[in-house]
């Protein structure tokens, strides 16, 4: 060893410095999205003022419609359940640097597969039927988004475009089956599949009107957070997402990682479809395609693709979606007003991505060259 590389005691950072740096990084990850939310709120207020409506009334109604009463809170949580899962469909591949926006299609196909499996299992026990339905939705949803990952890695096709287009194909496929081969002849006004057997339906959490889908969604968020931040798989995935060339240099199986992460994401969205069928609609039909997949993208981005952060953000947006009816009735604003708000939030979040590393208070103190 030369003198130049001899150990130097003062270089080893003290534990206090580690904690400081960690706290600063965590604070930055929370403050930046909050600033984006505030900016979006301000912009949206301007929009409302231009329409001659009161922003104060609007946000008061959102709070009332989403969280003020036990009834509205349950309504909110009910809508948060699928958002948790569709957000994971975007968030998990995003850890590997993939922007997948095809959750809506995977949800539709997952719901269709679950309904078909449920009908096929008529006569079987409730738990068996439910497990088969879950399995069918996981496989179909996973394969659908897994295909997006495979196209990306082995054929170099942009995953954002392919997932969007595959999403349209998936919705068309579901409509085809619902209006064709799987159509229940009794469903005249709204073409649907036959109903799944009653025993296969997912019930509500005792003492509430909220179905078990919420618990499944929260549970999956926790499990996938552990997977992405505490296991070697998650670590390897973050290397791929952070710098593909570094991952190649480390000899990591990039294709396999991308395929697995995409399939996990798709399976989550497929499961969201199964839960919608088994807990809400009782059958597959066009009611599955109401935008949960797209709102899930927004939730994932606002949560910075952190599965744990998805939980509060999904509940927030569940509330915004849930309050839509109230706003429509009380303020005379169209349904699409909520979409305008979501759009503004999304743009604000994308812009806020450029703020990371800009604010000095969150940065580690400068070091010598």
């Amino acid at each position, binding site marked *: 060893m030369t003198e130049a590389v001899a*150990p130097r005691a003062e270089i080893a950072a003290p534990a206090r410095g580690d904690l400081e*740096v960690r706290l600063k990084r965590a604070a930055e990850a929370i403050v930046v999205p909050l600033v984006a939310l505030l900016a979006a709120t301000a912009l949206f207020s301007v929009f409302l003022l231009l329409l001659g409506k009161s922003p104060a009334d609007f946000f008061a109604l959102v709070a009332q419609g989403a969280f003020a009463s036990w009834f509205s809170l349950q309504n909110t949580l009910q809508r948060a359940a699928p958002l948790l899962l569709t957000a994971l469909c975007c968030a998990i591949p995003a850890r590997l640097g993939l922007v997948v926006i095809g959750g809506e299609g995977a949800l539709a196909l997952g719901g269709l597969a679950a309904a078909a499996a449920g009908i096929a299992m008529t006569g079987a026990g409730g738990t068996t039927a439910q497990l088969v339905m879950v399995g069918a939705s996981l496989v179909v949803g996973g394969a659908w988004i897994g295909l997006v990952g495979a196209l990306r890695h082995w054929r170099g096709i942009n995953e954002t475009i392919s997932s969007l287009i595959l999403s349209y194909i998936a919705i068309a496929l579901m409509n085809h089956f619902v209006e064709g081969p799987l159509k229940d002849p009794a469903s005249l006004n709204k073409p649907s599949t036959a109903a799944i057997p009653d025993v296969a339906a997912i019930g509500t959490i005792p003492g509430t009107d909220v179905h078990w889908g919420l618990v499944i969604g929260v549970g999956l968020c926790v499990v996938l957070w552990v997977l992405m931040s505490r296991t070697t*798989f998650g670590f390897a995935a973050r290397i791929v997402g952070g710098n593909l*060339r570094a991952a190649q240099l480390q000899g990591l199986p990039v294709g396999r990682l991308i395929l697995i992460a995409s399939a996990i994401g798709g399976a989550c969205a497929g499961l969201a479809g199964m839960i919608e069928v088994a807990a809400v609609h009782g059958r597959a039909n066009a009611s599955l395609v109401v935008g949960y997949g797209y709102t899930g993208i927004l939730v994932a981005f606002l949560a910075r693709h952190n599965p744990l952060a998805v939980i509060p953000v999904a509940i927030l947006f569940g509330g915004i979606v849930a309050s839509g009816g109230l706003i429509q009735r009380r303020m005379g604003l169209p349904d699409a007003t909520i979409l305008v708000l979501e759009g503004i939030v999304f743009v604000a979040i994308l812009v806020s991505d450029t703020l990371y590393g800009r604010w*000095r208070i969150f940065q580690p103190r400068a070091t010598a*060259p």
Partner: protein
Amino acid sequence: MTPSRTFGLEALRITKRFGDFVALDDVSLKVAPGTVHALLGENGAGKSTLVKCIMGYYRPDDGQLLVGSREATIAGPRDAHALGLGMVYQHFTLVPSMTVAENLVMARADVPRVVDWRTELKSLERFIGSMPFGVPLQARVHQLSAGERQKCELLKQLYLERHFLILDEPTSVLTPDEADEMLGLLRSMAQRGDLTVLLITHKFREVSRYADDVTVLRKGQLAGAGKVAKVSREDLAAMMVGSRTLPETAARVGTVGSEIVLSLRDLTADDARGGHGLAISDLLVRSHEIVGVAGIAGNGQRELVEVLAGQQARTGGTVLVEGEPYDGDRGTARRLGVRCLPEEPLRNASVRTMSVAENLAFRRFDRTPGDRPAFWLHRAEMARRAQTLIARYNIKTASKDAPLGTLSGGNVQRAVLARELSEDARLLVVANPCFGLDFQATAEIRSQIVEARNRGTAVLLISDDLDEILEIADRIVVISEGRIVHETPVEQADRQAIGAHMVGHH
């Protein structure tokens, strides 16, 4: 040509702060008209800050500029250009797919809506005729050699009527011969009064042969200035580094081993950027040996590193490590002890948003302490190892949990080297490891590589810097157009012969 075409420049007591950091502290510079003035200093000494103040990219906090002995306010590069100041950058600013003529005309501020190419070409030919050197006007830029491109950059500045030129390390991409030719041209033009040159460099040889005056910066302050003829090389070095002693690179100890560690045979690979690709018929690296691959950038070095790093697939041939086929996959790399330190480690070898500790763990994270496949991350082990490596390799960081992107270039390089050398490697592939680093970091990193070699590692060193190869390699091979065209033990290495093989004249 009248001798009055060019003019001098004076920077008086310039101070530039970035927050609390003082990048330039009361620095003055005087460039006499018709001279070549060298600006010397280590990385981070303030050379580029000073030049950016002159060119208007930065606003100095204090001090003034005199252009041709008149006070000048330069609010932006436009003002600088209007005054006749031009800058030639390290990287080229020509459009590769366009011809030289198109590039020259396009650079003008007053390009007409409809270009009358016939008249333009005639006036361009007249202009080139009046210059001491020419370039093929109708050739597309990507067909030109690096030396010709550098000449085009110069011609562009002269064509735009800029007679005070700032050149930022202009010879870093040239062969020794090309560098001599270009600097000679600049000097003769300056002596005729056509040009004044401010030359940013770190090569003493260029200063003593081609510059009239020299200004040395150190840590943002003026360390010295004077006539080149009156200062010795030792004085210049002392001014650059101050009173501290220059760190020395560790010496190679022991003879080259007999065991062949890396064997490349008929290796071919494509160049996605349309260059020559790679066609190496035979290259061996033994244990206890550093093989230096010299060549001009863009002659297959990048493809060679990428193939060995697993970042690009080869199109043919074999890569054997200790006799086994090697494809860059993780299991084989671990078993055979293959490590790689590519150039620009922030772009090629690390994740800037992940912490220093995490980046240091890239080779080990998927193994348990008992070296079995791991499912759970061992974060405590990761932290402990990071502390050890940070101390042992002298990595300066606020914390092991700071994102790697917040570290300086030298410290990123140290971190990646620490990771790649932390367990004894059998084969180490290194590309331009000291690019952009200061003396201290350069000596440290070269020492680490030499010490790995002394411990028995086979090292393949790919470098654009011939001096670096001459300093630490046991054996030198020259790569040109993707082929190995010359091979020599370092003891018999002849700079001129190597230069000739680099450009394919042999």
